[in-house]
């Protein structure tokens, strides 16, 4: 047939970005279908974060800490992290889609990278929106630091994404369901210094923070948020967060690669669980 003349175009990176763009269009379509869908999407984010925010405020009142900034950064951080843990691979919940990804030219790794790009974009939007809205409550926040903070968001997405990949890879390898992202979300909100400082709770409980890798990120985020004037220090903190992000991402890809090969051997590729 003369019609059959379309070939793939662009480099691998261009193709990955093209898939991210299509996914973004689809997200925007879902979001913008009506005012109801926008409201529901916003409510969903707020409902996920609200209980911990309230808990933070209550504790803050108890410990007489100045909390609005603390909670604002926590909310913004949490929204970005949450998106990288949950949203990108919802499509895999559709049975059959995972194998379609495997057969495609991009392959599972390409699809994953495109979702990471999307997750970074969504993370940036959520993060900036919450910070700017928080600024209305807490005018001490200097908008000058916003670009630096936004520069850190991809490292948050990379860390969350890496954790999600490890969870999915473990499931692919063993077929055992261990919802790591779910546990991590709980630990992050409860003991990850997201909504209240760990030193304000009992020493025994605060030790649970050792098991929350994202504390490393949020402490550096708060350092930059505080408006330190020394650029070298800011850049150093940003670089540190990227080191963690890259580490988790590499580990995540190693685990999911191993899981994928195992699933290909065992013939269990139709059974995918992301632990979200």
């Amino acid at each position, binding site marked *: *047939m*003369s*019609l*059959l*003349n*379309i*070939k*793939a*175009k*662009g480099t691998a990176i261009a*193709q990955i970005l*093209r*898939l991210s*763009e*299509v*996914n973004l*269009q*689809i997200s925007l*379509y*879902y979001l913008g279908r009506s005012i109801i869908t926008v409201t529901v999407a916003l409510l969903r984010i707020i409902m996920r974060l609200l209980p911990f925010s309230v808990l933070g405020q209550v504790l803050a009142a108890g410990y007489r800490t100045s909390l609005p900034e603390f909670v604002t950064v926590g909310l913004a951080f949490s929204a970005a992290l949450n998106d990288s843990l949950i949203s990108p691979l919802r*499509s895999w919940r*559709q*049975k*059959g*889609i995972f*194998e*379609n*990804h*495997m*057969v*495609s*030219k*991009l*392959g599972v790794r390409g*699809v994953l990278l495109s979702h990471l790009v999307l997750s970074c974009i969504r993370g940036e939007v959520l993060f900036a929106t919450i910070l700017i809205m928080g600024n209305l409550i807490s005018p001490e926040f200097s908008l000058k630091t916003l670009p630096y903070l936004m520069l850190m968001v991809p490292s948050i997405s990379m860390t969350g994404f890496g954790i999600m990949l490890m969870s999915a890879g473990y499931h692919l390898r063993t077929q055992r369901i261990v919802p790591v992202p779910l546990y991590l979300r709980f630990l992050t909100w409860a003991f990850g210094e997201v909504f209240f400082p760990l030193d304000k709770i009992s020493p025994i409980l605060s030790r649970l923070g050792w098991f929350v890798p994202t504390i490393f990120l949020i402490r550096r985020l708060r350092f930059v948020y505080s408006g330190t004037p020394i650029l070298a220090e800011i850049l150093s903190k940003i670089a540190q967060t990227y080191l963690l992000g890259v580490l988790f991402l590499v580990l995540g890809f190693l685990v999911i690669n191993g899981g994928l*090969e195992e699933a*290909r*051997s*065992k*013939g269990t*590729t139709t059974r995918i669980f992301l632990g979200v």
Partner: protein
Amino acid sequence: MIKVDGLIKSFPKGKGRTYALRGVTFSVEEGEIFGYLGPNGAGKTTTIKILTTIWKQDEGEAWVAGYNVRTTPGKVRERIGWLDGMNIELMWMTHAPVKYNIAYFASLNGIPSSLALERARELMELLDLDPDLDVPIYKYSFGMKAKLALVVTLLHNPDVLFLDEPTIGLDVPTRSKFYDMLRELREGGKTIFLSSHMLHEVEKVCDRAAILNRGEIVAVGRINELRLLSLIDVLNVRFRVSGDENLIREVLKEVPGLKLLNFMRVGKGEYSISFRVPRQSSDLIATANELLVKSGVKVLRIEEQIPSLEEAFLSLIGDENEPS
């Protein structure tokens, strides 16, 4: 275009392993429609999943479009399209319009959305599918989704198409349209590997076929060859007779070794009777003819019958298996 050599695949089962493929070997030429037939659990889907690089074989080698599926899976993926009939309901973002679903599948294979949509419209028209791309998928019937699945499988212009039960759940006109499209694709030089339950349709559309049973190839060849292969040891014969039905039945009971396949009334007092007899006992046909004539039944015609693919299939895989 496809070459499979000694493919073995097993899966863990309890403490041991169960074998899905036990040394499967066959080849498919460029530009042919190749049927892959077998009862449930014969290993059809396992073969397709190995050839499409989704699963890995334990032993043996396979090449698709000149590339080894084990050592160069990426090259293979660039040249194939895969459609699994079991996924037709499950592969879509159901609340998104058709255009986004098309753009999504196209971008998985590196095709820009604008090109993909243009191409999709043309293919949709060929398949009698309304080319309105703003309709959400949930408004599509199953048949429309099946046609759209074929459209998205063809978007990146694959050289080889793997279709695993693609017409499952489709009505007769849609299936017919689907097979017409496959013929057109063959004319365009595509190689099509088709696994299907619809044997009477496979025999119309396929150039060659392989019959798989319990992980082993039982027969492979042109459709006519497969039909005749089932007649190596037996003869299928049809009598056209005129007379009393009860009398005819009584007479035929007197000929042992004659296996009655079909007894059908075809006109007033006229019947078509099909038998199967072992080839070395072909004199039973003459005996039956003689007895019928002696008892006053008029024998109008005797002819040897070529079995359908379905009959050949059943004969080749044995009676313990249901047709797949």
